[in-house]
């Protein structure tokens, strides 16, 4: 029946911020261990199904029409890769964040330890980054197996997809922490994610859209992610344009992180 060392205790210094963030990340990894199998299966199945049905099947029709000026599979695949990064980020940044605040209350458990709001936020964002990274890597691998990655530059599409994912993850963290309950998530999916998925140049060039909507597409982070990934996977990327895309996505990420920090701080201080 002995536990804990004898008094007086030796004083242990509190861990520094890198170790605190790493510990927060570790929680999400431990948690992920219970579900990883399913995510790997869907990580492989999603690109295989999409590229087969739309890239190869639908693609044959599009190519016959001959208006795209290139193979549809090659056009589609990198766009889907970016869009999937967005969806993964959305999935990982909504319910789990609400859970950390309200249902499982993980964030509150962490706050009672040396971990602070910044550590908790960054640790969780890092986990989302790892998830997006793995999903994007699998996607690229499948694209390559479909013979749709003609350039070595394609490898750079993985970090590009990661950045695309984070440009969504960070602001969605802020959104999730600012919501009282999960009712807003269905709206986010319906009115933001699905329209972006369909109209940000993933399936067809945005130049096909009416002018007014075309301009909306240019503002959305997904369009930048799609264009960036497409240029890299096909090896047609121009430096200046790519830098502009990266810059835009980085701004979305940084602003999102700042907003998320502020909403996290307020929300976590309020709810006990």
């Amino acid at each position: 029946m002995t536990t804990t060392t004898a008094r007086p205790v030796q004083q242990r210094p509190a861990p520094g911020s890198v170790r605190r963030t790493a510990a927060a990340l570790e929680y999400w990894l431990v948690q992920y261990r219970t579900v990883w199998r399913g995510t790997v299966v869907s990580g492989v199945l999603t690109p295989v199904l999409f590229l087969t049905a739309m890239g190869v099947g639908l693609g044959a029709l599009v190519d016959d029409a001959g208006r795209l000026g290139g193979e549809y599979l090659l056009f589609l695949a990198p766009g889907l890769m970016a869009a999937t990064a967005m969806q993964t980020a959305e999935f990982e940044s909504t319910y789990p964040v609400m859970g950390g605040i309200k249902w499982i209350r993980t964030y509150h458990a962490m706050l009672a330890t040396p971990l602070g709001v910044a550590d908790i936020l960054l640790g969780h964002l890092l986990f989302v980054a790892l998830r997006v990274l793995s999903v994007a890597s699998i996607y690229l691998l499948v694209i390559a197996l479909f013979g749709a990655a003609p350039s070595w530059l394609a490898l750079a599409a993985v970090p590009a997809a990661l950045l695309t994912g984070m440009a969504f993850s960070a602001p969605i963290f802020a959104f999730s922490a600012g919501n009282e309950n999960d009712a807003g998530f269905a709206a986010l999916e319906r009115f933001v994610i699905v329209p972006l998925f369909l109209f940000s140049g993933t399936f067809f060039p945005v130049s096909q859209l009416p002018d007014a909507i075309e301009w909306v597409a240019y503002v959305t982070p997904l369009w930048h992610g799609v264009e960036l990934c497409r240029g890299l996977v096909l090896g047609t990327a121009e430096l200046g344009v790519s830098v502009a895309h990266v810059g835009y996505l980085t701004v979305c990420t940084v602003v999102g992180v700042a907003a998320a920090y502020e909403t996290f701080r307020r929300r976590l201080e309020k709810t006990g």
Partner: protein
Amino acid sequence: MIHARGLTKRFGEFTAVDGIDVDVLRGEAFGFLGPNGAGKSSTMRMIGCVSPPSAGTLRILGMDPAADGPAIRARLGVVPQQDTLDLELTVRENLLIYGRYFGLSRALVRERADELLDFVQLTDRAKDKVEPLSGGMKRRLTIARSLINDPEILLLDEPTTGLDPQARHTLWDRLFRLKQRGVTLVLTTHYMDEAEQLCDRLVVMDKGRFVAEGSPRELIARYSTREVLELRFRADEDISVYGEKLAGLVERIEVLPDRLLLYTDNGDRTTEEVHARGVRPAGTLVRRSTLEDVFLRLTGRTLVD
């Protein structure tokens, strides 16, 4: 260990904690006793360095929470009012990951986790998910978890609320052992028996302020009489009538919805006097004064509502 002056917590216009002064010494068990909404949890969250004070000074272990939050929390153990266990993880995993938040090595955390599971008698449930555990087991796990960093101060916010009597006694026993080992205990409760059992010193809190302070004995001696005579009546009777009939018999009479409390130094003699005045209650009980009586005296309300 803990030093607060004029400690205040406001939520907008509302003042939840209203300028309290507290000093907790090393090794003592200090309690906040008060009804729902008294401001106990708000106080605990400030002491736990997760909720910044709106006003006043606060020093924990000689440090300022605003500047040294992580360093202070590294030396605290916290049992929150509402459990924050991860129900999807196993009992043991909950301890392991929590230890990592304190920057402890995996090996050390594993060793501590096993000791602590033993301490709270959950060794045989180590590999089970937390979800199906009983309320008492979850509470014990939360206590084990709060000890993973070998804390100097343990903050317990209503550690036994909602548990059955047996589970409560098991928990009290564990807490008592921790105290013997020199851990400073700070707890909130709205159970007077818990406060009497565990606390060396306590404050009675109501509406964000302290209404009394002292050891359980001192408080009872100061604010109540040695004994209490409880008179119960049938539900259809108007109790206040009896209150008037008995007026002046003892120094103080409390009229509750279902009974009369007569504060006296000799319960048996008072019982006879009650009968002599022609009052025939359905039941009588002579008991010792408790903190409940102190609370009633100080606030005019009962503790558990």
